């Protein structure tokens, strides 16, 4: 092993830390994560209804889909969509391929997360909805899914955190997100350590920020009943103060 002089350059680090390329890359990473989770949640919500269906065929189809998709690494899916599908005459651009691969991949994971949420909703909720005259699809949409998604927020938040970092994989099909931007820069200036440190700092910062957002979401939607009941406990205390002062 050769130990050379320390070549870390604060100048390079400072030059690129808030450079427009890096900021743009970080922004692309954010919207890729958001789109991946957004598309994944929409498709996954529909899929999860099949996964919890009373019909065996629906459940088998669901298990096949999620089994296949979750069985293939995201990296492989990406290359498959970008380089593989053109052989079947389906050619997509870089951005399209990225979004398609992310949507397919996330839909399977989000479907499993939402299915878990659906199973956590007591059976009586569906019965009460039916008793009011709702058909299954309506009951699913207005009664079960809203509660299932709330129950699924912690697991879904974890998924966002994971995808935030997994988006770096899309650099392989030359999608210019944060990791790709840093690679492009150090390929020219030969300062990989500084640039990868910068990329890492961005991932850590975005991940930390997401954790804050997630805890806000959990407080807002996670348990409406529990958080509101805290307010209820506070109210008598206020009344007590009023009676004492009067």
């Amino acid at each position, binding site marked *: 092993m050769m130990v050379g002089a320390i070549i870390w350059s604060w100048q390079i680090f400072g030059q690129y830390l808030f450079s427009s390329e890096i900021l743009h890359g970080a922004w692309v990473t954010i919207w890729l994560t958001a789109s991946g989770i957004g598309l994944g949640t929409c498709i996954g919500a529909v899929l999860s209804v099949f996964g919890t269906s009373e019909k065996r065929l629906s459940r088998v189809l669901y298990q096949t889909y999620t089994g296949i998709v979750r069985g293939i690494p995201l990296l492989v899916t990406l290359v498959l969509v970008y380089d593989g599908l053109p052989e079947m005459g389906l050619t997509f651009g870089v951005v399209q391929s990225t979004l398609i691969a992310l949507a397919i991949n996330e839909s399977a994971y989000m479907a499993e997360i939402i299915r878990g949420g659906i199973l956590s909703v007591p059976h009586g909720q569906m*019965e*009460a909805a*039916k*008793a*009011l*005259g709702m058909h*299954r699809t309506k009951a699913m949409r*207005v009664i079960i899914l809203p509660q299932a998604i709330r129950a699924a927020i912690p697991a879904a938040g974890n998924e966002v955190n994971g995808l935030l970092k997994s988006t770096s994989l899309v650099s392989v099909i030359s999608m210019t997100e944060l990791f790709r931007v840093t690679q492009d820069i150090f390929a020219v200036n030969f300062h990989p350590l500084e640039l990868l440190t910068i990329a890492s700092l961005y991932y850590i910062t975005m991940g930390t920020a997401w954790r804050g957002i997630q805890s806000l979401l959990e407080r807002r939607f996670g348990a409406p009943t529990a958080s509101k*009941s805290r307010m*209820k406990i506070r109210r008598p205390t206020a009344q007590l103060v009023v009676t004492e002062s009067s």
Partner: protein
Amino acid sequence: MSASLLDQARDKSRVAVELRSVSRHFGDVAALERVDLEVLESQVIALIGPSGSGKSTLLRCINNLERVDEGSIHVFGERVGISEDSDRPRPLRDRAAAAQRIEIGMVFQNFNLFGHMTALENVMSGLVHVRHTGKDAARARAVELLERVGLGSKQRSYTLQLSGGQQQRVAIARALAMSPRLMLFDEPTSALDPETIVEVLDVIRTIADGGMTLLIATHEMGFARGVSDEVVFMDAGRIVERGLPQELFLRPKTERCQEFLSRVLHSGREL
């Protein structure tokens, strides 16, 4: 046409619920065994009997939450859960089955209030999502019903902020909002504390006085006796005895009913 035939025809039109030889089995257990029952409009029927005697299954079959293995159920003349349009009867499709339940209100033992909705939203839910009533009209009706069950001040409360008795009253208001012609109460007070039972029973009593057709499965014998026009005693999936409350409670004809009543009445529940 003779007078008796006319009477019969008139009576037939007033039949709210008709079960003909209904059976339902869970594995080897017969939850219902060839049950025949006729309930006239505006009648209040109390279903009593030991746990597992088939009271709940009977109610759940009437609004098709439970399918029937054999026999037929008609509610207001309409066959429940089965399409008779074609030559071969077949189970109704989901939407048609749902439409049949609109006029049948149901109140569950465990309340089953929608957890993500406030009390007001719970009461509005059927109007908004099933009857497609406008939001404002639905809200006005829901407020009125919550006030009627004594919970006007709890509009914005979520399930966990309400006591069991309050939850059940919201659930009753939610069922009433659909203006059902028939209401089924599946042991509405069995999951409640003794002190909150009364408030729920009072609400049910006012509904009964309003002339709606009610079927109430209950373990509250005093209530059953006071509220009902007729009492049906069930045991092991069969209707063992049916009669006027004062007769059935004071002079039960069958040994099993006598045995049940003496056991229940001597275990602390007063008539």
